């Protein structure tokens, strides 16, 4: 059901883009007005969400510890899975964000001969990593449309990425990788009954949006080439705040744009914000140095306790009878 709705939503989007490409007024809207709007929504929304999270206090230091803590000096500790200082935390977060450390632990359970068996299941980690990294590289490669002259490091990246020259134009590794990653993530959601059970609209829709943008991009690159000069003109127009209407860039390009802008607007209000949120997670970004350094809770308030005096009042006779010392006779 959720899958169907998201498919329909993406289809509508495509049709919309088709409609746009056939009307001069609407292409103006898409290439001159919406880029700024989408960009603004993306930036403002992203910052807003992060600020909302960051504003909420962290009353307790609650790291999840995944290795030996720092204790006696002769006991070997896990500085990254259980950091006790800032550098350890930075290391842990770097592993988490760059290499998906936690996902690497993934296992899958099955019942075999009346026993639960835990098999290693690194596929999710592998394809997840593949997808995220290649998407990042693709986004960076796109910078060549927005910067003139093209910074040498972007070219450098592109040439490494296109190292395995196969076909003309170059087939970028990242293109193949992003498709593989996306396909895996999508199929997994559709095929695995457990995943299908927990998935909601946003899960499918986010994947389909990215899939749409990637597919149209690849089609333009390999099968229906667009006039790159025109694209660059358009993009440079945006950055220099003198947007021009693009001529002869083709329907596919409009669909591509449509997906990308929708993605930018969708991003801050959806689960895609995990990109920013992961940095704030209190079970990961705090050092496990609780007993070494007091953590302050900004809203720590007095509570009603049962004091020793009250306790002794309750039990004084019994304490005396048992021969226990009392403060007040």
């Amino acid at each position, binding site marked *: 059901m959720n899958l169907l709705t998201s498919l329909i939503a993406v289809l509508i989007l495509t049709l919309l883009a088709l409609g746009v490409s056939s009307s001069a007024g609407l292409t103006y809207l898409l290439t001159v007005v919406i880029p700024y709007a989408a960009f603004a929504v993306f930036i403002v929304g992203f910052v807003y*969400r992060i600020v*909302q*999270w960051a504003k*909420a206090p*962290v*009353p307790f*230091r*609650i790291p*999840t*510890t995944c290795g030996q803590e720092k*204790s*006696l000096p002769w*006991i*070997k500790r896990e500085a990254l*899975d*259980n950091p006790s200082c800032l550098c350890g935390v930075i290391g842990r977060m770097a592993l988490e964000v760059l290499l*998906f450390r*936690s996902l690497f*632990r*993934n*296992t*899958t359970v099955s*019942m075999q001969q*009346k026993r*639960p068996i*835990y098999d290693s299941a690194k596929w*999710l980690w592998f394809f*997840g990593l593949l997808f995220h990294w290649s998407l990042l590289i693709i986004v960076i490669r796109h910078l060549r449309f927005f910067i003139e002259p093209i910074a040498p490091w972007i070219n450098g990246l592109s040439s490494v990425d296109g190292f395995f020259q196969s076909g003309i134009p170059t087939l970028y590794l990242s293109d193949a990788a992003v498709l593989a990653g996306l396909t895996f993530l999508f199929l997994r959601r559709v095929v695995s*009954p*457990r995943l299908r*059970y*927990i998935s*909601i*609209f946003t899960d499918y829709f986010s994947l389909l949006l990215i899939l749409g943008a990637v597919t149209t991009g690849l089609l333009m690159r390999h099968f229906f080439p667009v006039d790159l000069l025109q694209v660059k003109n358009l993009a440079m127009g945006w950055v220099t705040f003198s947007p021009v209407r693009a001529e002869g860039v083709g329907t596919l390009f409009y669909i591509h744009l449509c997906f990308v802008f929708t993605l930018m607007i969708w991003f801050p209000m959806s*689960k895609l914000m*995990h990109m920013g949120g*992961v940095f*704030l*997670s*209190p*079970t*990961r970004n705090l050092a*496990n140095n*609780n*007993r*070494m350094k*007091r*953590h*302050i*809770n900004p809203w720590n308030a007095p*509570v009603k*306790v*049962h004091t*020793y005096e009250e*306790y002794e009042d309750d039990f004084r006779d*019994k304490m005396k009878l*048992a*021969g*226990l*010392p009392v403060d007040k006779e």
Partner: protein
Amino acid sequence: MSFDHTPKPDELIDVCYDPPKTPWTKTPVDFRPGTWSYPGTPKSLTALGLANPRQWQPTDEDWKLPENWKEIILDGMKERIGKHRSFKLFMDLCVRCGACADKCHFYIGSGDPKNMPVVRAELLRSVYRRYFTQSGRMFGSLAGARDLTVDVLKEWFYYFFQCTECRRCSVFCPYGIDQAEITMLGRELLNLVGLNINWVTEPAANCFRTGNHLGIQPGGVKDMLEFLADDVEDRTGVRVAVPLNKKGAEILFVTPSGDYFADPGTYTCAGYLALFHEIGLDYTFSTYASEGGNFGLFTSHEMIKRLNAKIYAEAKRLGVKWILGGECGHMWRVVQQYMETMNGPTDFLEEPVSPITGTRFENAKSTKMVHISEFTADLIRNGKLKLDPSRNDHLRVTFHDSCNPARAMGLFEEPRYIINNVCNNFHEMAEDTIRENTFCCGGGAGLGNDENMEMRMRGGMPRAMAVKAVKEKYDVNRLACMCAIDRATLTSLMEYWVPGVEVMGVHELVANALIMKGENERTTDLRGEPLKREESK
């Protein structure tokens, strides 16, 4: 306890992981006997000043909620969103990648999809979306939102009291989303309208008044400890002292009341007494702070603080230098992650230094509370104990990492170091089931009661099966652990799944091996069971 109403192990193990046809949003809860806990009694709620004390049962149609229950819950959510970054973040961040789904022992043992941590969280998240996010308000179920109804509340009650706050899911989540945190906040919300379980509220109420969960009064604590001292004398011939409420002692010793009141915890407690006597430790127990465990952790953050306050207050009153804590799981979650933040600062205490070895416990320099396994490992390392590990030769031991010391501290090596020094037959369970991957006993967080037996046995199944494997392979007959709840719950779990394996604390092993000055020749262990060499003679 009895398993009369629990299906046989052979039936219970038939778990099916295929999700049902109906989506979880359209599956109402079924309060099946054996899978839920009795609600808190009016008496304990009143004693703690909790909301809406009344008689009710989860199977009742009418839960006698306050008129404006919905408003109370939503206001409560709003307040907590503003007070806990974790709450807001964990509500927003989940991408439903499913990495946590099959990591929960309750899911593995029951196959109930709502026991997947991700769905357990969605129970609350869907309501959060509906009332606290724009998209949820506008798009409703399309955005994964749903209305807060009495049925939803019932579902929360059932599933938040079917989570032992073990944090295993959080180890695997790429964003560290911790269902234990969500359960804690969810239970806090439920408490606002008087929904809680008696196995939590009664110990908490007892603890508040008498200082310990079991409601033992000062004389009773003394009697129990004296009784254990008699036991030690019977087994070893050495009379050990039981210092209580002693002003000016160097160290305050705090341990869960289960240790001195219920088998097999008592043997662990006897182990502490023997050890402290042997090294001549200047310490004291307290009757006022006679509980290390803290059932506030299973109620609300406020309740944690209310119960925990006694430990520092008593340390101050008695004028001790620092605090030593016994073997307990959730007690150590509180000590490590909440105590000083809530009830510090600790300027009236000194940085802990072992009076026997001179070691400074740098890692506890601020909270000033040392874990007994750190303390004992340091003693052994410095050669301060005379040990005869062969006295444990009749035991083939495996070790269960308790959830909280594992995933809220990272206390892995100390107990292993101790065990390896005091016994000769130690066999680890499979890697997926120990250390940070450890499986819960199935009865933590207040769920270790008899009426919830089926769910406990289901939740404990992954742990039990791992024990069973080492039993078959190495003939293991003892399951050591460092947690008072474990010592109670694992005992039933073993009886049900792996008969022949008994449960013990690490310090029981220590005391078995400890050569004491002036002792008689030992023929039995602390339990009075004959030592191996006796058999061979």
